[in-house]
């Protein structure tokens, strides 16, 4: 009699088909994206300090702080958006579709408000990207970050649409949690840039 070439030793048919957090491969995918973009933003900051270190006057003459109130208020808006995103993630863990939708709508409104305020801040700037290297750095960084905010808005709208129209697959719940995790990263990046750009002692000196 021939022998069986394999011996079954583990039966996995009872294991679940979804998992949250770092058990889910997608968590590693999103974490990887955060590492990649985090490195890019960190190098942007490194470039800022490299050019700052080589400059005689920083910021260049003619640059005026766009206003501590409006820039700080805008950051506060962004920090506030963490709360509904967190609540949406918690609702996702409970598979409470109505609550997820509600908190996604609230956070999207905050994102849009942040973006509108950002546009008005950029209008107040006294320089453009082609004025000097300082201008290039600020505009490029804000531009890259804005792409992330816009992506966040589009993603939230998509999630709302999927939750409304269906079909809602069980794995979507972890996707939602990861969407929130990624948003915290986008907020944290801007908190850092806010500190470096708008609390720069050289720039604060131009406040009237």
């Amino acid at each position, binding site marked *: *009699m*021939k*022998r*069986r*070439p*394999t*011996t*079954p*030793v*583990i*039966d*996995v*048919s*009872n*294991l*679940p*088909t*979804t*998992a949250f957090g*770092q*058990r*889910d*491969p997608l968590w*590693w*995918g999103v974490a*990887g994206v955060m*590492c*990649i*973009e985090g*490195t*890019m933003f960190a*190098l*942007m900051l490194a*470039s800022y300090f*490299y*050019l700052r270190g*080589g400059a005689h006057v920083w910021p*260049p003459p003619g640059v005026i702080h766009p206003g501590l109130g409006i820039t700080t208020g805008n950051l506060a808006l962004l920090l506030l958006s963490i709360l509904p995103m967190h609540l949406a993630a918690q609702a996702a863990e409970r*598979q*409470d*579709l*109505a609550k997820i939708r509600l908190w996604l709508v609230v956070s999207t409104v905050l994102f849009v408000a942040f973006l509108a305020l950002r546009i008005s801040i950029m209008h107040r700037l006294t320089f453009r*990207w*082609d004025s*000097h*290297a*300082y*201008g*290039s*750095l600020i505009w*490029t960084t804000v531009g890259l970050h804005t792409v992330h905010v816009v992506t966040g808005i589009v993603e939230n709208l*998509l999630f709302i649409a*999927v939750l409304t129209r*269906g*079909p*809602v*697959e*069980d*794995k*979507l719940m972890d996707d939602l949690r990861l969407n929130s995790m990624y948003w915290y990263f986008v907020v944290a990046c801007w908190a850092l840039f806010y500190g470096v750009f708008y609390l720069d002692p050289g720039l604060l000196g131009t406040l009237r």
Partner: protein
Amino acid sequence: MSAEPIGGLTSAEDFEAAEAADRRLLERTWKYASGLWGWFTEVDHSRIGKRYIVTALIFFALGGIEALMMRVQLARPANGFLGPDLYNQVFTTHGSTMMFLFAVPIMLGLGVYLVPLMVGTRNLAFPRLNAFSYYVYLIGGLFLYTAFFLNTGPDAGWFAYVPLSGPQFSPGKRVDVWAQMITFTEISALAVAVNLITTIFKQRAPGMSLNRIPLFVWAMLVTSFMVVFAMPAVMLSSLMLALDRLIDTHFFNPAQGGDAILWQHLFWFFGHPEVYIIFIPATGIVSAILAPFTRREVFGYMALVLSLVATGFIGFGLWVHHMFATGLPQLGASFFTAASIMIAIPAGTQIFCWIATLWGGHLRFKTPLLYVLGFIFTFVIGGLTGVMLAAVPLNLQVHDTFFVVAHLHYVLIGGAVFPLLGGLFYWFPKLTGRMLSETWGKVSFWLVFLGFNVTFFPQHILGLEGMPRRVYTYLPETGWGDLNMLSTAGAFILGLGVLVYLLNGIVSLAKGEPAGDDPWGADTLEWSVSSPPPPYNFQALPMVSGRSPRWLWHDQHPVVVGLRSDRREFLITNLLDAEPDHRQVSPGPTVWPFILSLGVGVTFILGIFTPWGLPIGAVPCAVALIAWFWPRGDQGHPLLKEKS
């Protein structure tokens, strides 16, 4: 975990019938996409891995032809074969092709093919992302060569130093082509890196704890992490360069507060790790080949893994040694000299471990082992000139001479291409189901090995005599003609060797001997499945109980049961010990990754001409992404209902 058989089947006949039925079901579920449409929708890692390898080999051949053109030009003093302008384009395209379109993609492509098989899973973690990465890479490569044939090939060197590459000294679109090609290939490499990390961390066969991962897989893991932290630097710097050229930003313009040296910092923060991104997978190949051809486990597993990880870290602390000629502060130069010499420690540890493996093994002198031996010899020479170049005084003396050209080809061809050629020879039976001709394999090895050394050894001497790199000719009075002629002759021998190797592959594809599952008696899991592997890789996922799982199996081997065959199910295990955690469904074929890559292509290519490229290109990209991710409920996931 019990070692007792589970499941109700007892007799061998029952079992065989059930297994055949299960195999038919798996084949239906995991069917490859077919036809032309299938080519654009494929998500299988082995098929995409093969595409990576074949595409990269075509670019390797193109880069090689460019190298021969340069050698013909330099064969005699005051030669007129290539004019200075064409020479600039040829050497830039040669360097860019070899680094970005050949070396990195072929190493990552080999990982795409082999990692899921070696860790015992059915596909990569993100199969559609994998498909996307390939198309983006292909578009980037085609874009570069289209431009090259339209006389718009980049001409500022593969590291495109500003101010030469800036708007003032490089008008036209040549440098923009380079900058965008970089972005294409970096996106592709980053996508593969994240895919490999996730697959290695979360999808290993039960029992394959971290200390049992095959060395090749460890190498791909370290490489992937290096890609994640190094490639953003070149994406950012090439973006800055493109912006400087397109919308008049001033990142690298000293007149407006910018700094040309910033380019070099950002570029080499990527560029030096890049060398290890190419070299580390090659060390993995060496370890993979050594085990079956010495008939023993590779000596010093722990030392080798720690060396890989150490190389990964130290590799990020060396970049400034490319910039010694820029007038650094002395302290900085000393620091980077020390760091550069330090990397010889893990490199040396690896070499000694391999020698120890050879020492105690029963050697089988087949072609793959010859390439490994050629690697050890050549790489040690390249490593020695590397230690020399780490010293500031010598570095300044030979900066921008052929000594550097000789050094970098010894480490990249000797250190990476030799193991790669050995590795492709070794895995060819798995990829194609056929053996390569051993005789022609040996002929190719000796031609490549001799040709390589005849080409590049004289360049050390030429460099010490002061011959500058990247200059299209030299005068007869310099006396460099004879050594250059020797070098050119060597290049043609090398080229002939590569040609023999490639022809061997093409002929064997049709006429090679059938390979069977495991022609080499190897230890890792990819050899336990048919050649080429079925689309689901393993009918039952294997269970691993040691570092050389197949050498521990006797006539029966332990497997996992309970994965569903009627949908694309795969097993997720935990990070440290690879214990089964949960099951997931792998996505099936789709065309959207290809459409997205076209959208990305439109964005970047339009972006050369107008800043509106970004908003215009964003539209097809967004459409493709939405269509890609929109859930259709057709993959077998349980659906959730609204709570009332």
